[in-house]
């Protein structure tokens, strides 16, 4: 499994750090902390692609930035999911599963009908989901943590446990897959 982790200030993270710590030591997990690996935004495209090829499951974990992914993860989409590799002749990712793990500053009700974000959170999901689908990946139920700054430690710990259980299950399943 490849966990593409995009937090610009990993040591200042609360929610994402807690989630990452919950899964980090799982066997078969290749964590790729993009902002640590490529602080100059100089992605090693070949290395990233190799990591994807080796994985049966791709995880994208990040805080929500302007209803989207942080800039470096966007660049990662642009460069790593390249034509001839991920689409347009290349099918390197076809059949793999994709899990989106995202934290938001906004509370759940701020994504409600009368919330300040104007749309339910589900409406921000399609660009990410379609990115995975376009590359032939199977889209799994995302894990979303709302109100990332105010969520209680217990809640966060419980989400972390669920996250870990799902990845463990995927790994067991993935090893059995052809």
């Amino acid at each position: 499994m490849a966990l593409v982790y995009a937090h610009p200030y990993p040591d200042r993270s609360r929610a994402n750090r807690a989630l990452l710590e919950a899964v980090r030591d799982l066997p078969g997990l290749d964590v790729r902390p993009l902002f640590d690996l490529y602080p100059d935004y100089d992605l090693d495209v070949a290395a990233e692609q190799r990591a994807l090829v080796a994985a049966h499951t791709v995880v994208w974990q990040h805080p929500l930035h302007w209803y989207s992914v942080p800039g470096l993860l966007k660049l990662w989409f642009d460069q790593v999911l390249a034509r001839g590799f991920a689409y347009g002749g290349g099918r390197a990712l076809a059949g793999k599963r994709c899990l989106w793990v995202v934290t938001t500053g906004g509370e759940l009700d701020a994504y409600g009908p009368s919330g300040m974000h104007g749309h339910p959170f589900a409406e921000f999901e399609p660009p990410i989901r379609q990115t995975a689908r376009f590359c032939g990946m199977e889209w799994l139920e995302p894990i979303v943590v709302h109100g990332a700054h105010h969520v209680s430690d217990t809640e966060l710990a419980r989400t972390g446990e669920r996250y870990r259980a799902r990845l463990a299950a995927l790994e067991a399943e993935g090893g059995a897959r052809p």
Partner: protein
Amino acid sequence: MTSARDLLVYLAGAVVCVLVATRLRLGAILGYLVAGALIGPFALHLVSDEAAAKGVSEFGIVLMLFAIGLELDVRQLWGMRRSVFGGGTLQVGACSLVLGGVLFGAGVPWQGALVAGIALALSSTAIAMRTLGERSLERTPTGRTAFAILLFQDIAAIPLLALVPALSLTPVVAGAEHAAGPAWLGPLKALGALAAVVVVGRYLTRPILRPIAATGVREVFTAAALLLVLGVAELMHLAGLSMALGAFLAGVMLASSEYRHALESDLEPFKGLLLGLFFITVGMSIDFSLFLRRPLELAALVPGFIVVKLAVLRLLARPLGVDARQRWLFAALVSQGGEFAFVVFGLASEAALLPGDWGPMLTLTVALSMASTPLLLLVLERLELRRAGQQKKIYDAIEDEGAKILIAGFGRFGQIVGRLLFASGLKATVLDHDPEAIDSLRRFGFRVFYGDVTRLDLLDKAGAARAQVLVIAIDDVEAGVALAASVQKEYPKLRILARARNVSHYAELRRLGVEVVERETFESALMLGRRALEALGCPPHEARERAVKFRRHNVRMLEDLLHEWDDMTRRVQRARAASDDLEQQFERDRQALEERGVQGWHMQDAAAARAAAPTDDRASSPPPDATGAQPSRASSASGVPPAGNAPAK
């Protein structure tokens, strides 16, 4: 050698006449010719030993052809073979047929008419190439066609000189001393000499020049260059071949060597002076008394020759592939008689092929035709001007052959710049003074040239006038500043990008107006600083952001200081203020980052959320968790309504 007084006469004559001629826009060549005519034996007779000057001046042509050869490598020369042999045969054949025919009609015996016709068909490489150079036409297609023909003429002159004694009408064979030894020996010697030139030029010169260049004594390198060219010329002379041709060949062999630009710029003054001397000696040979003795014949012969040759050349211009707009220009360029004609007429008179005054008259005609070329071109330009309504239209076709970017200094610094550019497919011309470095770089296929990069003439040779960007990457602070200053003056259009060794070097360059200056240690020190932050636990991305901010701050501070750089106390004050400022800035950066971590991206939302609920945790109705068998839907502290977030599968 010429006596000291003669030398003074030559120099004075050249300076005065060339000055006047160029002022009148007549070109330097005409100035030299007039100077020669004035000081020569048939006018003021100020020179005691003309023969000495004549011998030396021939080296002017030799050096010129060497320089031309340096501009052409073997591949280019091979590519020209059709225009040399095809075009050359056509031109020499047609011109000698017509001119020889006219002479025969005028009563010259057929043998004389044949020899003199061919001799008159030849043009003056010196005049034509100098004129092309003065008007920067060398690289135009017309210039190349003209040059190809001149090259063929130089080759054709060799059998022509052999033809004269063969046709001789006197029992005493002129030039008999050449014919010593069995007949097969001549061609054999010639072949041997040519092979020697190729071997010397191709394989021996570079290993010989390298240690000489490494001594760093400039005049020794110049001496070696002269030795090389004159040595080759002498060798060719011994083998009975054209000295100029040999020098040309040697030049071609060295065209792709790293010393090309250094050789060119070192030999340039000699070439110029000796060529000038050559034109002076041509001027000196003009026998004015002949005008008195045979006014009518000369009145017909001189303009007649020029008009006939010009007309034939104009007709040939189209089959030779000259651009329609430049056909007259081409014809005028090679319309004069050449240097070889003097030799041929001398031999032919001795061999009684040219009876009576024909020899001296033809010699005079050729000399005057040489003087006519600059005038013809002037007339042509005026006509062109009137027709086109604006100047220089005919020079539109100048090809740009040089690199867009020059790198001065190819040490540790310049190499990185250069390699990045090369890797990006940009052809840079690289100049450096360290022969060792050059040699190894050439092995990797770089276009590297040896020379003192701070010399403007070397930059000129390397194409500074045509380049867009000059990277100054030398490590000598003073030389770098001086070079930047003089390049700004001489080539105001050339953009300078410079390496600075330290802050004061940076300031000096910036104050000169150099737009792009990079301190050589700054970026790498910043990078190491980043790594140090990382080593102490700062995440890499944050370390980078700090470095980026530091860089911006530092450069802005430096730029602010530029205008009062010389004021030491102000500088210290400002530097201190700036460093306090930096501390504050770091503090602000840190706070900004802290805040974001604690308060989040939208404080408004957080505040609103807090207002809406009594607790921060907001543990309101978590969603019914899916069982392990089913993939669980988004689980968050606040819960996600399944309806709203369920992905449309």
